């Protein structure tokens, strides 16, 4: 049994006679033998006792005549209309009130009007036919025929006793004649299929024959059709997807998509509801596959493709549940059985096929030797270049680390000390290694100005290694020429003007000199003015492997301290700034560099 309506509303007046009918509650049958027994469940409120519920017909009637004092006895806001909220329960067996909390119930909201019913002359005729607000009923598809609504307004039937009121229903153009009117009740005459139409738009016609004439009034009614799982899942077009896995081997990556369609709806609420849930099973006993691969399932509601009736589109993707080794090489077909658990028929399943090819990834340098040239003026932490095995930028889930070693181990200790000149740094999860100037002192010695290294790339999971020769040549005028006082290397970011910036030797400056970037914008801009060791890498809104070694190299990218002035920041550094941005050991300012504010009369000129 189910109620074809969420709630019932009706207005009642002072003077409503004892025994008079107020409204009729209906319940739809799920099986031919069912019979509804109705009961009034609201014993909480004092006014509940004013009403009587007919167990068999569901007709709510008055136990007493409503008096003026009844209206004032209701504790509610000071208003001309007070709401009386009742609850009606239904059961397929006769019952007592006590089990009400365990029954399906429907709300009955009666608007008790602090006045007597309008006289026949005063009343608006249409209100004899229809209430002000017409709520829309619902029936479940494929169910028994039956009455779902009483069209007469019991509380208004005696206002004009000499008038005769009758009803008719006109179905919408393309909809079957599933509905008719029998003794003032709207009846569904045959099971309906939601997948054909989710809602029936009925035009109710009410005819009132007065002493002089016949009046007609119209009201539209939308009967919503509730869904049940009466459709199996199906595929449209291909049930096979070819998948190639190569460089992207990280856990969580998804590949390919197969679509499964279902004309039924799939409710997402309440979350534990199992209606129309598709459950999938990997059709393999291969433990490697079961440990490595899962199928990701998502679904969404669609209307257009199902003839403007809500249905469900399911998406299935192949997903890695762990990182794949670079050596893994494998081809297989993976079948996945999708089962509509609540569909009664045998055809409630579809089989998906994923043709999977996994290619190995070589860890390899295509060139034997790589050459880098660096100015002798370069200061410590200047970036020389980056080293990376083939295709490394495409890698995901492949962790390769890089190491720098002296090519010829047998050279003298003195010669070995030259090799302090160059270092290699790599941030976790970064794909390349970055070469940088590690020590400028040794570069004063001519024999240290061409260095041969070996770069070893090691893939962490299987410890595969690849090697390449690296030659770093330092050229140009050395630091010996620069005046002693200029030898000191300072953080470029401290400089606030072009002149002092370009005149200083900055930490991490490949040319030895800091570089000035002049901003042009008025407000807060990504192109703020600033002094940088290398405008190619700083500021670039990324705190790279070298910059993160020392906050003084590029605080514009790496500082996490509060910034004073107008700025924008993502996680670190200064994404945008106002005027000139400059920093002192990580604390940064962004401000316009106008002339100093008019001289504040500071301490010297105190009386």
């Amino acid at each position, binding site marked *: 049994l189910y109620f074809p309506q969420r709630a019932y509303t009706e207005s009642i007046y002072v003077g409503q006679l004892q025994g008079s009918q107020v409204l009729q509650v209906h319940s739809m049958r799920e099986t031919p033998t069912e019979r509804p027994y109705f009961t009034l469940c609201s014993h909480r409120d004092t006014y509940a006792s004013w009403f009587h519920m007919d167990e068999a017909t569901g007709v709510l009637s008055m136990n007493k005549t409503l008096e003026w004092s009844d209206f004032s006895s209701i504790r509610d806001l000071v208003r001309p209309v007070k709401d009386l909220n009742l609850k009606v329960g239904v059961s397929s067996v006769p019952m007592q009130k006590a089990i009400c909390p365990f029954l399906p119930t429907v709300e009955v909201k009666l608007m008790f009007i602090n006045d007597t019913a309008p006289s026949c002359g005063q009343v608006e005729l249409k209100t004899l036919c229809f209430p002000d607000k017409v709520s829309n009923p619902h029936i479940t598809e494929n169910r028994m025929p039956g009455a779902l609504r009483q069209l007469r307004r019991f509380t208004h039937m005696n206002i004009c006793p000499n008038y005769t009121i009758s009803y008719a229903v006109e179905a919408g153009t393309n909809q079957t004649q599933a509905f008719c009117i029998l003794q003032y009740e709207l009846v569904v005459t045959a099971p309906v299929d939601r997948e054909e139409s989710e809602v029936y738009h009925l035009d109710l016609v009410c005819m009132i024959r007065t002493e002089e004439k016949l009046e007609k009034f119209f009201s539209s009614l939308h009967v919503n059709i509730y869904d049940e799982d009466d459709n199996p899942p199906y595929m449209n077009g291909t049930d096979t997807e070819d998948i190639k896995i190569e460089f992207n081997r990280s856990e969580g990556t998804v590949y390919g998509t197969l679509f499964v369609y279902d004309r039924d709806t799939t409710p997402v609420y309440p979350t534990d509801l199992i209606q129309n849930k598709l459950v999938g099973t990997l059709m393999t006993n291969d433990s490697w596959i079961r440990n490595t691969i899962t199928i990701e399932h998502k679904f969404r509601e669609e209307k257009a493709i199902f003839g403007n009736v809500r249905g469900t589109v399911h998406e299935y993707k192949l997903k890695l549940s762990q990182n794949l080794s670079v050596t893994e090489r494998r081809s297989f077909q993976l079948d996945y059985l999708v089962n509509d658990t609540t569909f009664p028929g045998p055809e409630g399943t579809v089989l998906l096929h994923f043709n999977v090819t996994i290619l190995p990834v070589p860890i390899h340098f295509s060139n034997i030797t790589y050459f880098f040239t660096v100015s002798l003026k370069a200061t410590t932490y200047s970036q020389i270049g980056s080293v990376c095995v083939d295709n490394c930028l495409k890698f995901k889930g492949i962790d390769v680390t890089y190491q720098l070693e002296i090519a010829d181990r047998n050279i003298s200790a003195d010669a070995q000390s030259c090799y302090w000149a160059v270092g290699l740094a790599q941030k976790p999860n970064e794909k390349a290694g970055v070469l940088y100037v590690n020590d400028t002192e040794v570069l004063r010695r001519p024999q240290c100005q061409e260095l041969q290294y070996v770069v070893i790339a090691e893939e962490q999971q299987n410890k595969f290694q690849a090697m390449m020769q690296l030659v770093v040549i330092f050229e140009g005028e050395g630091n010996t020429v620069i005046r002693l006082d200029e030898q000191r290397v300072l953080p470029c970011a401290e400089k606030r003007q072009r002149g002092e910036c370009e005149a200083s030797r900055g930490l991490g400056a490949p040319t030895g000199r800091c570089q000035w970037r002049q901003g042009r914008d*008025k*407000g*807060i*801009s990504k192109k703020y003015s600033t002094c940088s060791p290398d405008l190619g890498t700083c500021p670039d809104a990324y705190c790279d492997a070298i910059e993160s070694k020392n906050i003084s190299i590029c605080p514009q990218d790496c500082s996490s301290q*509060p910034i004073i*002035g*107008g700025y924008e920041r993502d996680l670190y550094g200064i994404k945008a*700034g*106002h*005027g000139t941005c400059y920093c002192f050991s990580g604390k940064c300012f*962004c*401000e*316009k560099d106008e002339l100093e504010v008019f001289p504040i009369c*500071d*301490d*010297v000129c*105190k009386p």
Partner: protein
Amino acid sequence: SRGRHSSRDCHVEKREMRVRDLGMGFDSDEIVLFKFCVGSCQRSRGNYDLALRALLANGSLPKRTARKVSAHPCCRPTGYEPVSFMDATTTWRTIKSLSAADCECMG
């Protein structure tokens, strides 16, 4: 530090300022109530200040140094308040520690 007098010697004053005029490059027509500290802190001075005044008066300090000397405690905020507003692109912005919550003679 020296005894504190948060009175005429050092107190909070308020000024309406358009965000645009705060000089920080934010493009917003909103107005904020900027609270700042005003006070000479003369009453909070100590022996140190008297000696320092004498030193400054005898002109033996170079001007560059003299300009960087505070000859009395300074009236400064003891705490700050953030100010939030929407800029011209209706993005919420917050300037931390902008306005003075309270003032005191410091140092």
